[in-house]
């Protein structure tokens, strides 16, 4: 009896120390922190969620691995980070960033729309559910010598690659190039100082990292996307109302054009003279396909269902692609 009374007293004390409705914290990575574009978008989302009766608090992180680890450790019930960083939680949504899988923003838009419309169960794995996919921008290859504009010419070149990206070694190996490990903070200086011959980033990195210094007069940007980088929101399903993730996906899909507008603005900052138009994309497409298959079959890094959905989307837009007959994905 005494124990029961004590336990009751303890529980009462614990209950009174908690706020009436504890906010769900989202550990949100934005390289620019609280003043960044994605953080602002998430603050708007938190307000929208209040209208749904859910308290959401957005906590800024400028280091995405720390954000992901804090989510894993239970310090927050949601995490926002790049798809590549969230690969370890669920391969299905992060495969949307697969190499060469979505050649244009329309491909990306239609795929994200399908995900919010059909809410496939694969968006949830264990306790983790993907609640948003936002564009960061097409990833382009920046080369210090604009003559390096074919797959063959990339052989032997030093390419700065994110060391946590599982796809990078396979792609770099596949084209016979040399991988130089880098992170977001060092990729700019390595390219600008000539430590590497090429790097691949989205256009929003061009101005802040001053990549024009690395491009100089001889360099350029190959105008054929390697991948579509995304920022994704992953939530702990049980911490939110049942339909919260679906509502969120619909909300963020509605913001797609606004967010894409920021990306396109950044692309405009790259002078037109710096873009390298390539005539035939078959070599790149073949290389991309080979890398995707290897990552799906040998490394388990890409999800087959998502690859297939994206192949269907490419073929729906352009049925003349050879892969539409081969159907390897």
């Amino acid at each position: 009896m005494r124990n029961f009374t004590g336990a009751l007293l303890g529980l009462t004390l614990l209950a009174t120390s908690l706020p009436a409705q504890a906010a769900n914290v989202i550990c949100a990575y934005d390289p620019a922190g609280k003043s960044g574009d994605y953080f602002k978008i998430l603050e708007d989302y938190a307000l929208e969620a209040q209208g749904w009766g859910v308290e959401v608090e957005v906590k800024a992180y400028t280091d995405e691995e720390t954000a992901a680890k804090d989510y894993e450790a239970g310090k927050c019930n949601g995490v926002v980070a790049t798809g590549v960083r969230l690969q370890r939680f669920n391969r299905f949504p992060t495969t949307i960033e697969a190499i060469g899988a979505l050649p244009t923003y329309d491909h990306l838009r239609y795929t994200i729309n399908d995900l919010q419309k059909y809410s496939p169960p694969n968006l949830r794995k264990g306790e983790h559910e993907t609640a948003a996919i936002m564009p960061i921008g097409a990833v382009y290859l920046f080369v210090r010598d604009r003559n390096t504009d074919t797959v063959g010419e990339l052989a032997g070149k030093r390419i700065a690659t994110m060391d946590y990206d599982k796809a990078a070694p396979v792609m770099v190996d596949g084209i016979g190039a040399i991988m130089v490990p880098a992170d977001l903070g060092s990729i700019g200086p390595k390219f600008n100082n000539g430590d590497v011959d090429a790097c691949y980033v989205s256009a929003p990195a061009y101005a802040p990292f001053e990549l024009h210094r690395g491009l100089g007069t001889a360099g350029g940007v190959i105008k054929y996307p390697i991948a579509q980088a995304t920022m994704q929101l992953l939530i702990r399903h049980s911490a939110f109302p049942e339909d919260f993730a679906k509502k969120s996906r619909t909300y963020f899909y509605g913001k797609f054009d606004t967010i894409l507008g920021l990306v396109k603005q950044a692309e405009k900052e790259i002078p037109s003279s710096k873009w390298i138009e390539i005539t035939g994309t078959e070599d790149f497409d073949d290389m991309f396909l080979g890398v995707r298959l290897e990552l799906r079959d040998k490394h388990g890094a890409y999800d087959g269902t998502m690859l297939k959905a994206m192949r269907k989307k490419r073929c729906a837009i352009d049925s003349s692609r050879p892969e539409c007959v081969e159907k390897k994905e």
Partner: protein
Amino acid sequence: MKVARLALVAGALLSTFGCAAKINNFTVRTVLDRATDRPDIDRVCAVGNSLGIPLMSLTKKTNYPKKALIVAELSAAMCAELEGREYALEVALAKKNLPAGPGKIGSIKDARTKEARARQLAALRYYTAFQYLEEEWGEAGNECPKIKGKDEIAYFFGLFAGLSGTLHDSASGRNIGVPQATLGKVARATECLDNETWWNAPNALQAAIWATLGGEPEGVDPWELLEDQAKKGEKSGVRIGWAALSMMAANAGKDELTEHAIIEMARALETKGDPNWMALDEYSMMIARHESDLIWIAAEGHRTEKFGELPAEEVEVPLDEGGGDNPFGGDDDENPFGGDEVEDGDGEPAPEEE
């Protein structure tokens, strides 16, 4: 009184009509010197607000007194920045104190809009100051220009304005369009100034940018460097370093580091500031206090009570081993502090008899 003072300044400036060099000298040395000798940012920003357009009107458009205009635009930007920070506190207060519902959402949205508008104006003014720097000395971040010793302060203010303009533009929807490359340029250009002469602020700014953008030399931790410069700089009596650390750490979501910077700033302020730069020291304190206010509001629903103190953390009371028995021994029904509770009729336990 303020009007009379401004009239005197304007009169002095008019006597130098047509000569940008004289206006630059008068503003950068005399006006700035007088304006910063008291911890009164309101006055500094009022002067900046008022002087900008008259300064531009005294010379031909091709020959603006650019160094003077850096000072004027920067001071004017501070007005808008501080206004924006007030609205940021309004946002935090609404989040914390208002009951859930449409009223709360509307109040938060409105305060956020006001904040964004004020920050946008701050970004415009700061960036204009930075543009004057580049017009005067060439593109920042390339080879260092020749800067006369007495003009170094204008160069420093211009760089500070470049950093601040980028941050406020980014925080307000990028409507001004401050080029994102500005941060990198500023980081390199800080090396053109003597670090110790300017309160270790040039290196602190550089470290702050590296902490945001990367690009630091191998083996350098920008956060450690920023703290190191803040410590070294506080001896000068202008505590910009701690302000920068508190602001950048808060922006990066580094809560412990933000709190550390606030506490260190308060400690540093126990020593008297440089009498020539009291206003700048005051501005630095206000930046750190703003971060402190945000912490206080989130925890307690009101601003900082005493700068340097932080809200007490809520202590979660754990259940005792064994399920909650009286930790002092004896039965739960007994007074754990000894003695029986014998009330004397007024609701309070009666004192024990000797």
